[in-house]
């Protein structure tokens, strides 16, 4: 299979057979983990999720069927392609295996190359099915015309607003962006991140966006323009919404006064924003106090004014940008991102260039990622 090598778990009580089979798989480009019993396999599966499992049928203590039954009780593991290795061509085994959603079975005498080819075909079929399901969902989403990220940026005198967003592995996730023109005077900028990944998180972005849009509009029509009080209203509703139990989200909420370009901000469990000061050529964090939406009945939200001087830039972003692939694992490093951003600005590079750079590096991202930039133009408000 092309791309990243596939990870296979081989389970058999015969160490010699296991060794030979593992060697053949590794030669074919697979990563193998071998264990001698069903219980060892279950122990390994507690912290690992291979791409496929090949298990002997006849083993002492826990036989292959019991092992398979056990795997099927675990949501995290039950959909991993599973193949039985049997010592003989027994129809009964074949039927009981099929009953347990074993996708295939192979007689052990089969040459290793044939077993490998079967596993390759199996993984290919599973992948194809997954792709088709995703295409189907994508087409449905496109037909419904619902988006968690706007297509256009708002145009405001004196400020330049722009953003970049990238889904993780091309599947929509939990990040959402909105620009809400509440009335003639105020524009609200929203950047949120539902905790979780891919479709499950994406699904909830619309519930959150609906609450946020409603709260902003109700508040502004009641002449309550405070970002902190809007966040508290949203928090209260989400906290009590049974449908959103355990679905938490961070949100950065910024109110832009279109008359004078003033920014007011409150945050809910979001990463500190970064403010680039042209005068000192330094990036400084803008911390907020609020908790993730839906966490506690009182989220402790406070509003602050952010004063942008001419040429200053304000960056609002989600955690996908601070997560990096690191050796064999991953790490979160806010500071490293801030240093990179500072360097980018010091090199007199624009936000458009930053977007290009992020786009080029997007294959290395480990989560969906979004960044919004608000720049105070060098022209004064009146001149613009």
């Amino acid at each position, binding site marked *: 299979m092309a791309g990243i090598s596939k990870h296979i778990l081989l389970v058999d009580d015969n160490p010699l057979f296991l060794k030979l089979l593992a060697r053949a798989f590794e030669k074919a480009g697979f990563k193998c983990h071998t264990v001698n019993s069903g219980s060892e396999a279950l122990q390994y599966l507690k912290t690992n999720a291979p791409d496929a499992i090949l298990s002997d049928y006849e083993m002492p203590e826990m036989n292959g069927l019991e092992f398979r039954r056990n795997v099927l009780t675990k949501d995290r593991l039950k959909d991993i392609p599973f193949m039985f290795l049997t010592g003989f061509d027994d129809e009964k085994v074949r039927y009981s295996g099929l009953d347990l959603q074993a996708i295939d079975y192979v007689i052990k005498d089969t040459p290793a190359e044939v077993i490998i080819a079967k596993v390759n075909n199996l993984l290919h079929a599973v992948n194809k099915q997954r792709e088709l399901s995703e295409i189907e969902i994508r087409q449905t989403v496109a037909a419904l015309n619902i988006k968690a990220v706007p297509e256009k940026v708002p145009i405001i005198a004196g400020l330049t607003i722009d953003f970049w967003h990238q889904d993780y592995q091309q599947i929509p996730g*939990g990040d959402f962006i909105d620009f809400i023109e509440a009335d003639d005077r105020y524009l609200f900028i929203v950047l949120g991140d539902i905790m979780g990944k891919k479709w499950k998180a994406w699904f909830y972005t619309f519930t959150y966006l609906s609450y946020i849009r409603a709260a902003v509009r109700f508040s502004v029509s009641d002449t309550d323009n405070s970002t902190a009080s809007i966040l508290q209203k949203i928090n209260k509703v989400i906290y009590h919404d049974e449908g959103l139990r*355990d679905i938490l989200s961070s949100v950065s909420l910024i109110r832009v006064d279109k008359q004078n370009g003033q920014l007011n901000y409150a945050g809910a469990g*979001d990463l500190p924003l970064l403010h680039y000061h042209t005068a000192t050529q330094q990036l400084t964090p803008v911390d907020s106090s609020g908790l*993730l939406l839906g966490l506690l009945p009182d989220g402790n939200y406070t509003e602050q004014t952010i004063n942008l001087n001419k040429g200053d830039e304000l960056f609002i972003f989600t955690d996908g940008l601070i997560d990096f692939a690191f050796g064999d694992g*991953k790490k979160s490093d806010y500071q490293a991102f801030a240093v990179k951003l500072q360097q980018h600005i010091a090199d007199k590079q624009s936000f458009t260039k930053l977007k290009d750079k992020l786009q080029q590096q997007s294959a290395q991202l480990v989560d969906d990622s979004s960044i919004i930039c608000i720049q105070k133009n060098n022209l004064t408000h009146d001149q613009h």
Partner: protein
Amino acid sequence: MININKEEAGYLLVNVNLTEANLSHSDQFKNEVIALLNEKQRSIWLNMEQVNYVDSSFLGALVAALKHAISLKRDVVLINLQKDIDDMLKLIRLDKVFKIYSTEQDAQQATI
């Protein structure tokens, strides 16, 4: 994924046996911690020593476990956090919700 290291009168010390705690573990982790809270009716101190990275799905699972503990008038305490994760929790203010200690002894002195 988790195992009880020690059962004390006031808490269970539980090891989290993951290096990269992500989406693929979050549901199971949440269910296991909630089941332990229900069964033992004691606060859970999670020893996070082995964990190098947590993604937002796993953070969500931690918070869900904490909310469940609070509803039982118990707690989920984090100990032995690696620096990157400790920094991350502080950045998003989760240090205001979780009790976080460097060692089990520190946690004992502060809470018992």
